[in-house]
Each structure stands twice: as structure tokens, then as C-alpha cells.
């Protein structure tokens, strides 16, 4: 006896599984109901996108315009901020540096040895 026959003699081809009563009688109707439901869903899905499909170019155009406007607004806002900062900085330069301060700096920068000796002798 080969191994396959041995298994057949032990377990045969008996089916140990069972199904709920009347299951196979209802199965075809259940499957067809599901298919009908799927077809209905497909039809409604198809109808909705038709409106969307016609409006789609308009939606794209609106989205592009919004992005462009937003970009321009951001650019102008940034530009405005930069010019304001520059103006502020130039004001600071003008107000901070007085004539007396510049003269003092210039005098200090032009000191030579003779001036230093003269200054020291004057203090003695």
C-alpha cells in the first residue's frame, strides 16, 4: 500500500465541516444582491463625478489664481518690510554720529609722538 492509499484508508475524503441550515439555498440570492448593490453604487459614483468633471478646469483655474495672488501678496509684504528696515537704519546713522564726535576721533587719530611729549610736558 502506498502512502496516499494509507492516508485514504485512515481518513478517506470525509468532510468534517458543516454549514448553517439552508445556507446554500440562500447563497445565490445573497451574491446577486451584493452584485446589484455594487452596480447601484457604481452608477451613483459615476453620476457625481460628471458634475465634478465639468467644473474641474474652473476649480484648477481658481486654485492657480489664489496661489498667484498669495505669492504676490507675500512678495509685496516682504519688500515693504525690507525698505522700512533700510530707512530705519539710515536714520540711526544720521542721528548717532554728531560733528563733535567725528572731530574728536579725527584729532585722536592724528596724534604723533611730538604731540604726546608736548602733552606730557604740559602736565608736569
Amino acid at each position: 500500500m502506498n502512502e496516499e492509499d494509507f492516508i485514504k484508508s485512515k481518513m478517506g475524503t470525509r468532510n468534517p465541516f458543516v454549514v448553517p441550515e439552508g445556507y446554500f439555498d440562500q447563497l445565490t440570492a445573497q451574491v446577486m444582491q451584493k452584485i446589484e448593490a455594487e452596480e447601484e453604487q457604481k452608477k451613483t459614483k459615476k453620476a457625481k463625478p460628471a458634475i465634478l468633471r465639468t467644473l474641474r478646469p474652473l476649480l484648477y483655474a481658481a486654485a492657480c489664481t489664489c496661489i498667484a495672488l498669495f505669492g504676490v501678496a507675500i512678495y509685496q509684504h516682504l519688500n515693504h518690510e525690507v525698505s522700512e528696515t533700510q530707512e530705519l537704519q539710515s536714520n540711526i546713522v544720521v542721528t548717532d554720529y554728531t560733528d563733535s564726535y567725528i572731530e574728536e576721533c579725527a584729532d585722536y587719530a592724528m596724534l604723533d609722538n611730538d604731540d604726546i611729549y608736548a602733552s606730557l610736558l604740559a602736565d608736569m
Partner: protein
Amino acid sequence: MQIDDEQLKKLIKAENTRSRGFEMMVRKYSEQLYWQVRRIVITHEDSNDVLQNAFLKAWASLDSFHGDSKLFTWISRIAINEALDFVRKQKNHALQSTDDEDMGLANQLMADNFFDGDETEAQLLEAIEQLPDVQKTVFKLRYYDEMKYSDISKILGTSEGGLKASYHIAVKKITEFFKQHD
């Protein structure tokens, strides 16, 4: 009275009789397909879901059925692939899950209202389930459904030679199981 496949194919092909033809096909083959799926998926609830999904897929792909192959071979291939996909997903889910629900298939079967076997049969099914995927599937399709190696090869994408070897190993392991339990 059951309608033959050639008439069914004609009904399915024509737009106005497609639904009626498909319904007849479901009525003709659902029981046979259910048992193929049940042996792979094991529980009734899952088998029911898998089979209904398989019919939905078959309906959606009717245009790709050219009618040159047998109607049952075509629909059976869809159902078996659906069942194998389901088992694969279930296996992945079990690997990812941290739940400690693993009480062994034999125990689960003995607690299942839709299992009518004794403990040895439950243990045998558990032993079959522990075989590697290809060995397990080829054993079920060949032993219970007497499916041709060429058809199994098309479903599993494995060579006929490889399937024969897998079947032989599966038979050997199941024989061992019986010898250990005698």
C-alpha cells in the same frame, strides 16, 4: 435542471442576459467552490466572505473572460486566489498581533459549531495547517478536489514538477502524523 457551460457562456457574454447567466453560474458552482474555499480558510464565516468577494471579483472581470477556458476552472481560480490572499493577510495579522488568542487550531475546531469531526480529525487538520504554504495548498486541492497539477500550477504559479514534489512531501508528513497517533 442544470444548464451546460456553453449555454452559460453565451448568456454571460450578451449584455441583456449577463445577470441571469451569472446567477445561473453561481447557483451551479457555488457549493463546489464553497468547499474548496472552506478547506483553505477553515471557518464558515470567513469562507462565506471570501466566496462572496470572489463572485464580486468574477462579476467585475467578466469582460476579461474570453470563454476559451472552462467556466469552473476560471471561477475556481478566482475563488482559490481570494482564499489564499485571505489566509496570507490573516497570517500577517497574527504575526503583528500581540493578542494571546492562539489556542491551537484543533481546539478552535472542537469549539466551532460548524465542525462535525472528532478530535483526531481536528488534530489532522491542525497538522495539515502546519505544513508550508505550497505543500498545504497542493495537498488540499489534489487530495480533496482531485485537481490536475496543470491547473494548480496556473493558480499557484509553481511548476508542475515542484508541485508533485511538494505533494509527495505533504503525503509523507501526514502519513507520519497517523503513525504517531496510532
